[in-house]
């Protein structure tokens, strides 16, 4: 019983960490975008204010049960996948290390890939029931794009799985600990392919076809305000933390303490963000087929490199 209680407390601590880091990153990105535009920009804690406002906003209407459950599904996907990603290197020496060993031994990469798409489906259901055509268009775009970036992403992961004969994330971290080489150098092609996929996953320009402001009226979230939007926003923040941490775990040797984690994830995060600020938006079919050209090539190269 005590054991389970500690687990739950650790899970809550992880969630709070992911929430805070994700939200802060969101604010910092807004600040950076503003600086690139030669603006002052909002304060870095702006996202927390927005979240608090959305939380305190009233909601008087709903479009049915799935409208409520869609955001809940989304949150399930984010939080459960957070539980399976090692935030810090397991068995590290920082005093808070044991807080973050949630369920990392209970699942592996393939499981994670599937639980991560759970949210998209839940979100799709919630958006579908509102009946807004813009929402449905956004959803079909998002799902289409997911098919696009999944190919280089899986190719990159498969090449690493082949090289180290494991599909467990903890094992990938351990391999990097033992050899002292980050996997982004051990198999650079996989890293490149994965990076392309990461850019697709973050939906910044040129892949921001889902929300597509001024085109789809914010797409799937267009009928959601107040607590719905708050849940979606928090889920998005947690989820971006999950994606970054997963990427750091696999390619960049994990993190032994929180400072290293923040440095690594932030550096990684800047790649899609900075590229996104200065680029235009693709059309949907371009955004899909983009991943079937150079990223696919690098993915195949990664597998070839792993085999040889």
């Amino acid at each position, binding site marked *: 019983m005590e054991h389970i209680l500690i687990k739950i407390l650790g899970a809550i601590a992880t969630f709070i960490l992911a929430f805070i880091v994700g939200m802060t990153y969101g604010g910092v990105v807004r600040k950076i975008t503003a600086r690139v535009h030669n603006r002052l920009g909002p304060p870095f804690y702006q996202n927390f204010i927005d979240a608090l406002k959305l939380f305190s906003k009233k909601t008087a209407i709903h479009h049915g049960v799935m409208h409520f459950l869609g955001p809940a599904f989304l949150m399930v996907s984010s939080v459960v996948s957070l539980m399976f990603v090692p935030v810090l290197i397991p068995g590290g020496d920082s005093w808070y290390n044991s807080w973050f060993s949630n369920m990392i031994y209970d699942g592996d990469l393939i499981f994670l890939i599937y639980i991560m798409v*759970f949210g998209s489906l839940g979100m799709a259901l919630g958006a579908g029931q509102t009946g807004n055509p813009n929402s449905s268009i956004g959803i079909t775009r998002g799902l289409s794009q997911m098919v696009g970036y999944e190919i280089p992403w899986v190719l990159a992961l498969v090449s690493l799985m082949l090289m180290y004969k494991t599909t467990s994330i903890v094992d990938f971290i351990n391999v990097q600990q033992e050899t002292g080489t980050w996997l982004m150098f051990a198999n650079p092609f996989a890293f490149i392919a994965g990076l392309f996929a990461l850019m697709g996953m973050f939906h910044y320009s040129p892949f921001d076809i889902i929300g597509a402001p001024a085109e789809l009226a914010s797409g799937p979230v267009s009928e959601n305000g107040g607590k719905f939007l708050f849940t979606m926003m928090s889920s998005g923040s947690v989820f971006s933390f999950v994606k970054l941490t997963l990427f750091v775990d696999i390619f960049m040797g994990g993190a032994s303490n929180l400072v290293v984690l923040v440095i690594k994830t932030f550096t990684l995060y800047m790649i899609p963000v900075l590229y996104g600020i200065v680029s235009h938006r693709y059309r949907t079919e371009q955004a899909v087929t983009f991943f079937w050209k150079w990223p696919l090539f690098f993915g195949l190269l990664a597998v070839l490199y792993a085999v040889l």
Partner: protein
Amino acid sequence: MLTLILVIFLGGAILTWLGRKINPLLGDLLFLVSVILPATMFVMNIKVGDTIAQHTLLGIDLVWGLSPLAHLFSLVVVGLGVMLSIYSISYMRGKEKVGMYYFSFILSIMAMLGILVSRDWISFFIFWEIMTWSSYLMVILNGKKVQSIGIKYFVFSALGAYSMLMALVIINSQLGSFMLSDTFNNFQHLSPANQILIPVLLLVAFGVKSAVMPLHIWAPDAYSNSPMGYTAVFSGALSKMGVYGLVLVIISMTTQLPAGSLIRIIVAWLGGFTAAAATLWAITQDDGKKLLAWSSIGQLGYIVTGVAIGTPLAMLAAMFLVVVHALFKGSLFMAVGAIEKQTGTTDFKEVNGLIRKMPVTFISSLLSIIALAGIPPLAGFVSKWMLYEALIQNHNYLLVVLLFFASTAAFLYAYKFLHGYFLGQEEPEWAHVKEAPMSMTIPMLLLALTTFVLGTWPQLLFNSIDSAMQYLGYDATNGKLWTDSVLFSQWGDKVALQPVLYAIIAVFLFFAIFLYFKGRKATRYVTTKDISTSGEIPKEWENLTFKVNFMQPFERAIEPFLKRQIEKYYLGFGKGMEALFDFTRRIYTGNGQTYAIYAIVFLALLLIFRVSLFG
């Protein structure tokens, strides 16, 4: 006992048909009795054993028994058969040719059980043909497009039947026995040419039924044209007979061959291509029946790949997917049937917004779709995980990417299905629609809930699969690949399914309470017309539905792939054959003199043949 069960089926089929002529209610009752009674007898009384019944027909021994492998498949057949028979009563009410439907339904259940209990090729072939014919009657039952669809199904079934017949003839001429066990045990003694020829011929025969890529042309039309109550059996159980045959051929025959691994890798890639291509085609469909038909072909592709790879983990995955696919696809086809029954159409573009009118159908469809997409914690995930692990460990890395692509693309049609029927705008046109009767919703909900249970406690099924695999010559997998509800792979990776379920339920409940139970009272329902439409108030007749060209951007992206239809090659082949036959027709001149010459030439050829062959 076994004979009695099959006779009850057969007699029940005829009695139901006759009873239906006298009184519809009597027919319904007889139908239920003649499916459920022998099915129960089968489950209760028939235990796994080599020879349970033996008959002699025209000097040929017909041996019936039940192997552990067949036992696994018989669970699918019996389970689906009983569920669908309850469902069919309501589904077929008020339709035409109900007697014929009942007759064919019972007959095909009997034929499938017959195939599974056959221990010799003769009864196997007889039951195979009964199955084909009864399903053919179903395909043309509604009398629509008999020309194109019926003939397509018929031609491909005939192709399968002939190649099977040819294989049987070769087997008997070489080994002198029709027994299945003799074929497998003495396979080494065949000549090398026959060792290749027999598996290939049988693969064609079973590939037709399990709709492997170049032989799948008949399936989408045949699935969507037969009554939905039967399509669930068609896709869930009947196509699994092809898989059963494939398992026999691939595991029991090709493993004994030096060239067997080549055959298996070809079949595995065919399965992979089937999965990917069928998924892309499913995305482009606008009719729920067609979409599910293509999706069935795709899922069968996964199964075929798993069987062809043949490592213990892949086999476990394939066998698990056989059962799970029957469950969720059965449930989905039933849902489509219920929608067809209540609204009169299955076209996505016509019907929408049924979620509030048919909630039970929606919930069972949702669970089944999640299982189909392979998302934890439902059972689809278990088989997907095992299949990918098996493929990666077997170094089929490109195949695994192909399958990953297929299963990711499957989300598109999964969402299209749910959105098409249940979500989107609620239109006044469908305001009158009510939930389907209990006898239709309960079977589909039961099947969907079973996938939920199997997703966390797969060991309930693994035990049966394990004994089936031990029968095929595998080691016991319990403790190596799974323990209780934890899945392992040889590399030591694992997924513990119970913690996953608990975590998901905990988080879901927390946020569902946070959003729903607090928000539900404070908010009120507004119609789907009440959305942000730039301040416009849509009129009653204004249609805001987004259904036409639902996946258009994606279809544009995959346009180059969709251009290559196999059907076109078949049509070209058909044209060529027509020309050939046209030439052959010229032989028949109608002149007696010419025929006399033909006869003489033929006799001369025969003589030469005889002399040169036998001296």
